[in-house]
């Protein structure tokens, strides 16, 4: 069905990060917000994406923000870096979604919701680290990878899943020995993302806890956040609720804290 060669081919085809993005990220890393925004403006698709994303209701701006330098100014260094990484993830997304009932708008909605709630979580945990702030951006790549690998095998997968409740990550791991989050890690390497991001993403699978206590704790929060969002009607209807297994025991010790923060009653 899906072979290791196919996965290798998929990773091989992933383009490196565009130069404008690399330059933007380097300038953000150096704290040069104004210069970074000028470079970002040269990439029209990035500029359009930034405007669309930050004007979503979850960002809570009263007036429409249209200028990239203004957007970077409002988001700050960490927020801008996170948004640029979010844009990089969208570069992988398909023109047309087949496996999941998503489109560009709903996918961006998921990115925006995850990003804002991750910010809320990090504030709650008193963590102020721009790489950790950006780590959430790689999480939706897991959905894109699943779509890319399984979209041509929908009938086979549906038949298999009608007989056994298997998630896509389990199917892939059992067939090829490589999981969806392993592929995300490889993408992060290709895009020269900070190593911490890949570590948190691996822990957020709920299957590979990190030995580093801080990374592991962040992995738990991210895992629970993912399923909090995938329990929203829009994403259930998109078929995302069970694309990977929710590891309920993994998040047991942070659930009450999470529920209080998200005001779940």
């Amino acid at each position, binding site marked *: 069905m899906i072979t290791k060669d196919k996965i290798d081919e998929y990773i091989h085809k992933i383009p490196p990060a565009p130069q404008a993005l690399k330059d933007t990220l380097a300038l953000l890393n150096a704290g040069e917000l104004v210069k970074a925004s000028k470079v970002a403006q040269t990439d029209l698709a990035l500029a359009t994406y930034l405007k669309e994303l930050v004007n979503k209701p979850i960002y809570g701006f009263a007036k429409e923000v249209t200028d990239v330098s203004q957007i970077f100014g409002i988001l700050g260094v960490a927020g801008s870096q996170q948004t640029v990484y979010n844009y990089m993830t969208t570069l992988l997304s398909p023109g047309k979604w087949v496996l999941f009932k998503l489109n560009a708008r709903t996918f961006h909605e998921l990115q925006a919701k995850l990003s804002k709630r991750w910010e809320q979580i990090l504030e709650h945990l008193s963590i102020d680290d721009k790489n950790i702030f950006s780590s959430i951006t790689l999480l939706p790549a897991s959905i894109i990878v699943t779509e890319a690998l399984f979209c041509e095998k929908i009938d086979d997968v549906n038949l298999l899943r009608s*007989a056994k409740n298997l998630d896509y990550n389990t199917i892939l791991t059992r067939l090829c020995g490589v999981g969806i989050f392993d592929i995300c890690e490889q993408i992060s390497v290709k895009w020269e993302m900070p190593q911490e991001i890949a570590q948190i993403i691996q822990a957020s699978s709920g299957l590979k806890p990190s030995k580093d206590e801080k990374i592991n704790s962040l992995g738990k929060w991210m895992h629970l956040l993912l399923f909090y969002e995938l329990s929203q009607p829009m994403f259930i209807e998109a078929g995302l609720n*069970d694309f990977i297994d929710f590891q309920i025991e993994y998040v047991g010790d942070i659930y009450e804290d999470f529920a209080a923060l998200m005001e779940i009653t």
Partner: protein
Amino acid sequence: MRPVVKNGIGVFSPQGFLDGNSSRSFLSIDDLAATSALKVDMILVSLKRVVFFNKNGLDAFIKLFVKVRQSNHATVGFCDYDDKKYNTIKIFYKDDINFSLFKTIEIAYLFSSSFKNQNKNILLYSEDKSQRTAMAIELHDNGHNPIIAPTPEEFKEKSSKKEAYDYIIDSTFLGQMGQKIATRVTGNAIIYSISSFLDAEIVNKFNIQYHNNSLNVGFRLFIFDAYKVISMNVHALNFFSKLASSAAEYNATICFVGMTFEKTPEVFKENLEDSGILFYEQMDDILQNKELLSELGASSASNVKSKRVINKKIVTELPRFIDATVATIEMMTNSQAVKQSAQVQNIDITDKTDRIASSIGYYGDIDGMIILVFPKEIAKKACELLIGERTEDMEMILDTLAELVNIVGGKIKTLLSDEGISVNITLPRTYDNVDSLLEVIEGRKGVQVDLSFNNDKFLFFLTR
């Protein structure tokens, strides 16, 4: 979201957070219709991967339960929860629980008519005395040995000796149970349990697919356990008469055990006897009498030679059958298939060593039976995908084989449907050796296709 069906139980597995908004999204109108149309004994919602739920979240599924019960009388409820979730549900619905609660899916299986989990020693406890009794009766009816702990202290003491019991049941509640006719298998006889008033509803309660499949795969003795029947009306009489006529085509026997005619006209018994149905007072009159068992056809699964031959229509669709089989096994084993030969003949299995087999029937616009003979190795590879590890456990291998064949059947159904041919598939039957398969199908002519998967020989046989 659709339920995954296994052993007659359909299970929904939502994940994450269940509230009024989200749970409605799990069930589209199509999902509701498809679930209601399923021929299953139970529809359950697993709460294993649900971290939060509120009453509104459960209510959407409870509406589904009502619809399912109205359409097919199946048992409905929730499963896979901890004590906290169990107590929360009890608080939400207080005295208005008309669905069931099974602590685990394995416990639910014990209450289903699946014949795979029989003769188990089961310790059970419920603080509600009537629940304890109801559970014990259901378990006993399903062929188990229930042991009731009347007090929490006794339950604690007994449950500490885990090795003494196959299963321990607590935090479980039986709501309105399904009214389907329970089925179990004893040797080569199939026993159906019927009870109370038998009327026109028998048509809905009786799983005719299962029965036809059983006939097709070689069962020849069907016993209706009728101790609990109070009366029968003319609609039920007609149903059993027709059942007896169709059984006669296969040279099969239908018996009633323990049926009294105090409230049923005696002439009904004569009519049923005229249809070929036999009456016995006690179950042991049949099951303990080997000579009689042999006479009634239950000593072996030997098959009456099918007079039906494979026809042009089936041969025309043969490539689709093979494509479905090959694609499924390739998917399950991640290997490539090579077709070696195909011809019309009696089944010919040259190498019987380390071979297992399975058959599945289909019926509708066209009908017939597919037989697959596997090297154990292929089934083991399929196990790796389905259960995530290699196993030598024969029961598990056969279970996987049944699932694999079920997937083949499902794929065939889809492929034929694309061609405008509508068929349904029966339950698969598995054989742990080739000889027991041959007892059933020897002498039948069909199309045999020899295939090879990574040098493992594999046989496909299509017959009627």
